């Protein structure tokens, strides 16, 4: 039931097109100005909390609790960051241990997710085997899965696997990433079959084709699922809270959480917590900024038909 088709004689179409495009230009200008003002205001509003945490992390104690509260900092200091390091050096587990745990588990998770997801995606996209559609439809259904819903059985499974309180517990549960497999598969389908056939005729085995041809072509998608895995791993507290008991096995987000919990009336900790929060957030942002183009490029193929 679209707008009615109006039959226009061919000679008029040309003129009408020109007029239309002119009209479009005028309209766009006004509309674009309008859209841009609105978006700019909104963008500033959305970025406020982020600018705020940056300021807060650099505020000296004398400014943290001024009344009326102030947004900008007058005399930025690194005092809070020093405190973060010092405070935690006197504690049983130093800050650096949490940081090390986080960096290590995140790196392994990112590498593992890329490997596991792209292998499965390659098979789903480019190979024919019995049960392919069935397994892939499982993956689609699993897109709707949120681990939060089944926290208890997950706990039971992990307890029975015997990986409780080890590094693996920060990595393995995150490797089951249906979103990664899905995005990768959509992207891999763009690879022309002739390319793969040609390589096979030259005697390349499936694994060689995968590593030498498929993966290099799919670098944007690799970057994207890498970023998603990074975001998922770097700031999650679930595995630290539920699956580890030893303090030295827990990660940075958990440490940050202990700093911010019940902070509302805590005078001393606020600047330190802001500094820790900033350290959680900045790597996320930097990684996204570096790969933004590739992420959007991958997302263009994200449609579910």
């Amino acid at each position: 039931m679209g707008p009615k088709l109006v039959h226009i004689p061919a000679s008029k179409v040309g003129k009408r097109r020109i007029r239309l495009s002119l009209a479009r230009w005028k309209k766009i200008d006004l509309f674009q100005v309008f859209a841009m003002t609105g978006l700019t205001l909104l963008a500033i509003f959305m970025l406020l909390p982020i600018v705020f945490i940056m300021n807060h992390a650099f505020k000296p104690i004398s400014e943290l609790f001024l009344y009326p509260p102030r947004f900008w900092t007058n005399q930025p200091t690194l005092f809070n960051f020093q405190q973060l390091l010092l405070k935690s050096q006197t504690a049983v587990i130093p800050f650096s241990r949490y940081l090390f745990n986080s960096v290590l588990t995140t790196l392994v998770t990112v590498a593992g997710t890329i490997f596991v997801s792209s292998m499965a995606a390659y098979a789903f996209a480019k190979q024919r085997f019995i049960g392919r559609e069935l397994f892939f439809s499982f993956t689609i259904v699993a897109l709707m899965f949120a681990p939060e819903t089944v926290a208890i059985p997950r706990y039971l499974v992990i307890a029975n696997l015997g990986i409780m309180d080890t590094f693996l517990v920060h990595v393995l549960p995150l490797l089951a990433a249906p979103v990664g497999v899905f995005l990768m598969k959509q992207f891999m389908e763009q690879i022309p079959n002739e390319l793969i056939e040609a390589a096979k005729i030259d005697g390349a085995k499936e694994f060689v084709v995968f590593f030498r041809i498929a993966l290099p072509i799919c670098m944007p998608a690799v970057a994207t699922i890498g970023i998603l895995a990074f975001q998922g791993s770097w700031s999650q507290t679930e595995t630290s809270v539920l699956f580890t008991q030893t303090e030295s096995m827990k990660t940075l987000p958990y440490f940050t959480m202990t700093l911010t919990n019940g902070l509302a009336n805590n005078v001393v900790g606020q600047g330190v917590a802001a500094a820790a929060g900033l350290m959680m957030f900045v790597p996320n942002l930097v990684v996204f900024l570096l790969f933004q183009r590739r992420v959007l490029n991958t997302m263009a193929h994200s449609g579910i038909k």
Partner: protein
Amino acid sequence: MSSAALMKRRWRALLTTLWKQRVSYLFIAPFMICFTVFIVIPIVLANALAFFSFDAISMPTFIGWDNFLAILTQDRIFLQNAIPNTFKFAIIVGPLGYSLSFLLAWLIHQLPKRIRDIFTIAIYTPSLSAGVAMSVVWLVIFNGDRIGYLNNFLLSIGVVQDPQYFMNIMIIVSLWASMGVGFLAMLAGLQTVNTELYEAGAIDGISNRLQEIYYITIPAIKPQMLFGAIMSVVGTLKAGAIGALLAGSPITPQYSGHLITNHIEDYAFIRYELGYASALSVVLLLLVYGSSRLSFRLFSSKGEE
């Protein structure tokens, strides 16, 4: 030929094909194993546990539908707080947040290419910061005493602190952080729409942008919108954790921000009634599955071409 011999031959043929395709199974094996262990088994277990009474120490005892009966008839907090809160939260953060991210993606797409990136980053950044990192900011902004920025403002116009605002705060914070993967997918999808479609539409009598969105844009990016919708369903669930972060414990003041996820956490990790908590998570799983099915109904492009 006897039917037994025929069966045997078929069997053998199947085995030979499977053996020929062994490389494919090797490719999907790592993912399928993680997927089974951390997603499928927990879901199956949750469904099974829902029919037991289990306190994590003694053996589970089978009690049939009693857990579900208790949910429907005895659990006052569930019926009075968790259900209405979850619906309010989910309706606003889900569909509203989703429409908002579509609108923003579309607005950004109307701008000239060069400045799109800036706005994309500004709108997407909050979703990166979600969770632990920002809780210090929310605590400061929404703090109950006059140091809280918003409270400072509200006090000056005569509004006082009340648990009923807690829910609104949760919603605002979640909306702020909801422009995530789905937003990126829709934005990227918009860039793939063939511009000739718009020109053709203009000739066919489409006169304003609303018609353009309805007749051209939405049908063209339906697949990406479906992906976005599913990400939004899952994201809404995850966003529920914000209440626990703001309050510092799964139980929010006077159950003002009590969602089903919090209720599960309460029964699972505070009261250790694992069977009952599993029954609750089955209810939640059904709700999530239902909403995803609904998204498929709305946005599926199957059977249209």
